[in-house]
């Protein structure tokens, strides 16, 4: 396994950095936040990203994708993370594309993947139902009633659910009070958010991204709406690992940017007649953060590779990456605010955005504690 980018990947990363700096610096996020619209991202920007091949970055070329793999997507996410760019990269390019590609039948793939690649179709994964990531614990179900399949349940904290053209809903194959063994099986359904019985409510979170609650009130679906087979638990787990690693790459980018801005501030801000970065106590804390960032880089890079190489240790890599990204981004975002002093807690400065994003990102796809436990379980202790 190589932990450095090859030439092609490096080129992609450089392009991403330039693109984001030009088209979506942090001021772009600030504008979106102040607009406070429901979509929380710029559709123009998403179109441009799709034109660069990012929407289809995990999609095979036969379906219009660029098939750059997770290492490629990770490089892009790190750069968007640096500038806190809201976009459907994770909800659509990662989750939607992977789920359809891995679980879908040929018709579904032919129909949907090219639309995703072109940036015309965005998706949202409706999975979790409580205040923390807990994919095994869901009540939403879809069963045959009379002639129809009927989907019923409530999903919450769905990322990008309000802007998605298509919802991918994870449901039990039997009602929750059914305690048979088959209970552990799960299906996914493709649901048009405009369908009768689908009720979407915006949730306003501290990081000003798009989240919502979705109620499925006896929503009628067809067999053809099922994404692939009747039991896709294995695929869901695989794709969630991708998502854990993808968001880790984004979090790494945010941590790197918050750190860079802080180092710059330490060099610029003068007190007691010298730059505050000349004070050794701050220097040592900065050097420690640097070390943790280096470890986080390696963990994320290792995990991205593990997916592309289909390593049999990829599950542990996913928790390694998410744990380190969570811990490091928390450390760096706290220290960044503290080292900025008074201006750090003002809304006028960008640095507080990293703090707000950090805690939400930590919860998405499992908190640090969740992954610490998971790493130990996977390591058999």
């Amino acid at each position: 396994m190589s932990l450095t980018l090859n030439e092609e990947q490096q080129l992609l990363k450089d392009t991403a950095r330039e693109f984001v700096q030009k088209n979506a610096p942090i001021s772009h996020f600030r504008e979106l936040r102040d607009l406070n619209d429901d979509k929380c991202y710029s559709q123009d920007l998403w179109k441009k990203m799709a034109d660069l091949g990012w929407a289809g970055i995990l999609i095979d070329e036969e379906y219009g994708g660029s098939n750059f793999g997770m290492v490629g997507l990770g490089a892009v996410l790190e750069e968007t993370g640096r500038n806190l760019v809201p976009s459907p990269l994770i909800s659509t390019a990662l989750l939607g594309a992977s789920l359809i590609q891995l679980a879908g039948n040929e018709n579904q793939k032919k129909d949907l993947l090219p639309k995703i690649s072109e940036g015309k179709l965005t998706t949202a994964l409706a999975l979790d139902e409580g205040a923390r990531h807990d994919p095994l614990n869901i009540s939403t179900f879809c069963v045959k009633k009379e002639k129809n399949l009927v989907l019923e349940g409530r999903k919450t904290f769905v990322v990008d659910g309000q802007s998605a053209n298509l919802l991918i809903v994870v449901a039990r194959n039997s009602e929750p009070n059914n305690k048979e063994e088959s209970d552990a099986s799960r299906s996914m359904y493709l649901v048009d958010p405009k369908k009768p019985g689908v009720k979407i409510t915006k949730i306003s979170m501290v990081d000003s991204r798009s989240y919502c609650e979705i109620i499925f009130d006896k929503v009628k679906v067809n067999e053809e709406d099922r994404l692939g087979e009747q039991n896709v638990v294995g695929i869901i787990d695989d794709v969630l690992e991708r998502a854990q690693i993808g968001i880790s790459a984004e979090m790494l980018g945010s941590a790197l940017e918050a750190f860079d801005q802080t180092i710059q501030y330490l060099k610029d801000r003068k007190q007691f007649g010298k730059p505050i970065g000349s004070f050794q106590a701050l220097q040592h804390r900065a050097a420690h953060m640097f070390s943790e960032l280096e470890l986080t880089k390696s963990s994320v890079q290792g995990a991205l590779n593990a997916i592309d190489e289909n390593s049999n240790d990829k599950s542990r890599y996913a928790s390694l990456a998410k744990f380190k990204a969570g811990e490091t981004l928390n450390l760096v975002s706290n220290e960044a605010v503290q080292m900025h002093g008074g201006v750090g807690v003002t809304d006028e400065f960008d640095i507080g955005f990293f703090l707000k994003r950090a805690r939400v990102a930590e919860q998405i796809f499992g908190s640090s504690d969740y992954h610490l436990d998971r790493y130990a379980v996977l390591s058999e202790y």
Partner: protein
Amino acid sequence: MTNLENFRQETKDWLNENCPPEMRKPGDVSWGGRKARFSHPDQEIWLERMGQKGWTCPTWPKEYGGGGLTKEENKILQEELFAIGARPALASFGIWMLGPALLEFASEEQKLEHIPNIVQGKIWWCQGYSEPGSGSDLASLSTKAVLDGDNYIVNGQKIWTSNANYSDMIFCLVRTGSQEPKHDGISFMLIDMDQPGVDVKPIKLISGKSPFCETFFTDAVVPKSNLIGEENKGWTIAKRLLQHERSMISGMGLSAGGTSKKKISGLAEMAKRYVGVDGQNRLGNPFLRGKVARHDINSRAFSLTLQRMGEEMKSGGPSATASMGKYYGTEQNKLRYEIMLEAMGFNGLGWEGEPFSPEELAVTREWLRSKANSIEGGTSEINLNVISKRVLGLPD
């Protein structure tokens, strides 16, 4: 009956008669001021009665309107107030910070002019210390006051002035002497904000709230009689006042419930509510359980430490160890909110509206607000400097 027993009975009787029923419930506390607004008519009555009696500042001398109580009498008063669940009649920087400094450094005339107004909540005071270029390095401040006849003319800018938009007057550090040596040209003066030369602009924080302002002085006029102490000798007053500020902030950590007589802490209780318990009624997430227990232990040890320091304090007023309290208390408070967020998951990260409860939304905002705790009133770094140099005697 001893004098103290007597005093207790009298206090009981007085409170019984004078504390309005509404003020015996939890609720907001008045900050007084010229344009005082009260959320309930009883609040005004309560403030007036307590102010008249001097019990808003129970141990301050009677001649300046204070309660004139001894330490022991004050303890009894606080116990009796606690017993009936009485709300404080007044909160203010005048009580916590300016008053003690005036008592120590002001002239007799100044004391007679300003202290009774503090006791009775007639003036809302704010603090004008930091400037954009002078945060931790407070002594480098450059707001200038030039004597012109009987008045100083003040020009410059202050920042982090708490609630300046509601305040009547500001106690300010200004430069009356040369910039170098920087500690020697600073004076401490009281400025009336109700004049054309003073402008105030609220600062929006990451929490979305604006508890602080920027305050601009453009040829603001300050009578010479509002200079406290000698010209250019304000730094001594400033340092003393900072100690009062630090003790005040470190005391805030107490509300975290370390001394509560209840078995289970508020933190553990809320964590159980959000995370659930295992078969043995232990908090369901063992990692979180460890963090909560560690925080509970440290909160309790910290409360005990404030108590011990209070007992050890021979002379009045806080010592350099106030820096320890400020440092540890604010770091604990920040950690407390981080643990709450961990316990609450997405529920602790709401910004507004459904599906969050008002309490949940308050946690998010307070978590963000807590980040300023270790910055305002002297950063953790400055307080660690003070401990290492003034308490431990480590060299420069």
